[in-house]
């Protein structure tokens, strides 16, 4: 991974953490001061290397695990801030990165927090289902 790719990937995460949903090529260019074509080349390399997933137009970040750039059934909340997650596990992953908070599973309970993480302890008990074997996670990452 070259210097530009490192800078671009880190910028994508900064923008997602700041609350930007689906950072675009233009957003990252502005954030980093890089030229748009440099960011575009880096986007493609990072996607090829499974560092992130792009929109069909290759100009917007759809996934930068554990963050999702688009709305999903899973949301992580800390205070008044919230982020979309790719799956239930990633919703915990966001809290693992950013701190204690709540996981909302819209598919299961209509938008109410399903779990709370406080001092690293998750309540109430529950299960996260993994459907796709680990070796096949990236065969169809959107499905995974």
């Amino acid at each position, binding site marked *: *991974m070259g210097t530009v790719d*490192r*800078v671009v*990937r*880190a910028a994508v*995460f*900064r923008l997602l*953490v700041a609350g930007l949903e689906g950072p675009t090529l233009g957003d990252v260019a502005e954030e980093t001061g890089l030229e748009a074509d440099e960011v575009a080349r880096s986007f493609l390399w990072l996607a090829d*290397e*499974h*560092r992130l997933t792009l929109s069909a137009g290759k100009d917007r970040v759809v996934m930068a*695990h*554990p963050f999702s750039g688009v709305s999903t059934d899973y949301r992580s909340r800390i205070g008044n801030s919230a982020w979309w997650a790719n799956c*239930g*596990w*990633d919703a*915990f*992953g966001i*809290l*693992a*990165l950013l701190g204690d908070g709540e996981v909302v599973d819209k598919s299961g309970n209509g938008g109410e927090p399903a*779990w709370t*993480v406080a001092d*690293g*302890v*998750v309540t109430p*008990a*529950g*299960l*996260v*289902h*993994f459907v796709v*074997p*680990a*070796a096949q996670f990236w065969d169809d990452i959107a499905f995974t």
Partner: protein
Amino acid sequence: MDVQTAYDLSVIWYQDRMSEDWVPASPAEAEAIFDRFGLTSRFWRLS
């Protein structure tokens, strides 16, 4: 997987994800992380 294990695994899995220096875990490294959480079945093997 119970949610506490999912959270604990994610702490290890994602701990350095936002660093500029992050690189993906190799298959062996990833399997070693899975092993720590008792995820040793064929489902969690990468090679």
